[in-house]
């Protein structure tokens, strides 16, 4: 309980300063930064009319499917790459070239190849989340204490059994770390992708209401 209160101190302070700068002093004009009460009001309005909920669900569904594809590719591949120097040697260069490309940079191709919509978004989420999962899985496999795999062999395990019963559980914490990072990046990618090529989701409503805002600003100046 004390901890909860403690962690609330800073957010409340920020809202307080925000309110002073906007509502109470008008130091920052409304069209640059809306006041807290206006933001909360819009927030509740969006919740109330269901727009926000629907958009959130849409976005999360996309992230979910994107992550499933990523995990299905990255976990088995990461285990093989971490386990076998041969497989790693074969794929290292390709991964090294593709990995630094920001997933957002693929958006034009995604739209070109897959059109606007779910497939396109999933493709972008996949590209964003596949590498953190892959790299963490490889790392987890490589960091396994070799004595554990050797124990398995001396107890009569085949290589396949060793991978399944030792390598996989031993690398699981790293794989989960990779998935967590993947979720974060996946979410960022989706929202970004929706801002450009979508007609639904959180990114889409951000852009949609941005247009409203622009109109409002324009009205003020005209």
């Amino acid at each position, binding site marked *: 309980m004390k901890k909860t209160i403690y962690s609330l101190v800073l957010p409340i302070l920020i809202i307080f300063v925000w309110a002073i700068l906007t509502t109470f002093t008008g130091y920052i004009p409304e069209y640059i930064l809306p006041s807290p009460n206006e933001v909360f009001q819009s927030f509740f309005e969006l919740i109330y009319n269901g727009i926000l909920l629907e958009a959130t669900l849409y976005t999360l569904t996309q992230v979910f499917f994107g992550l499933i594809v990523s995990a299905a590719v990255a976990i088995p591949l990461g285990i093989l790459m971490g386990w076998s120097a041969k497989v790693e040697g074969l794929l290292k260069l390709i991964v090294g070239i593709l990995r630094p490309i920001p997933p957002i940079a693929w958006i034009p191709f995604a739209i070109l190849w897959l059109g606007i919509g779910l497939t396109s978004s999933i493709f972008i989420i996949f590209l964003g989340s596949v590498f953190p999962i892959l790299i963490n899985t490889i790392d987890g496999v490589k960091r396994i204490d070799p*004595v554990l795999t050797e124990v398995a062999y*001396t*107890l009569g395990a085949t290589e396949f059994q060793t991978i399944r019963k030792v390598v996989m*559980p031993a690398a699981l914490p790293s794989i989960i770390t990779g998935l967590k990072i993947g979720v974060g990046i996946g979410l960022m990618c989706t929202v970004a992708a929706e801002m450009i090529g979508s007609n639904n989701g959180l990114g889409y409503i951000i852009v949609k209401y941005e247009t409203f805002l622009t109109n409002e600003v324009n009205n003020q100046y005209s």
Partner: protein
Amino acid sequence: MITLKNVFKTFDHNGKTLEILNDINLKVIDGEFLCILGPSGCGKTTLLRMMAGLDMPTSGEIIEGDKVVRKPTRSRGFVFQQYSLFPWLNVVDNVSFGLELRGIDREERYRKSREYLKMVGLLPFQHSYPQELSGGMKQRVAIARCLVNKPNILLMDEPFSALDVQTREKLQVELVKIWENEKKTIVFVTHSVDEAVFLADRIVVLSKSPGLIIENVPIKLKRVRDRNSYEFLDVKKDIIQLLND
């Protein structure tokens, strides 16, 4: 029976070739308790790993029964010097690991595993996880995990070296009992003269750099051995003499 014929082992280290073991010839007789004794770094672990099939000799041959040892199999169980339990499995699942590999059903697996856990005195801890156990308990579980798998031979690499003296001596007594009951062949590596004299039917003494066998010492002392008896201390003295020459 395991036979080593003219076994040499070298490691390449930073471009240099290190001669670790030199012309090792050794027969491990069925049912015997053999200790391999030598100073740290003389190649004891390397020798045992080659017997297990975890490492290959640079030249020479290691034969178990009538087969050349090429890779680890369940007929040669190995107890490692470092703790080696699977941290994500509880004690009984650790012990069952080898049985599970062979597709033995859960009930049967647990029944057999519990039998061996009882033998090492850890039945009450069957549901504990490795991180909840002391060092001595971990090594006991590792021994049970090995035995339940019914190996022909048990290879043990200084399994008690990380334990305090009391625990170590207690486990030595238990190990001798297990060896007598199970009628297993044991090859036990150690750098402790006391441990070797307490456990062994025969001690193979290794020298350092390059490691070669300097002596084969049969230990005829009656079991259970008394570490404070004159005979025990005499044998110890002789072996320390050998190591110092």
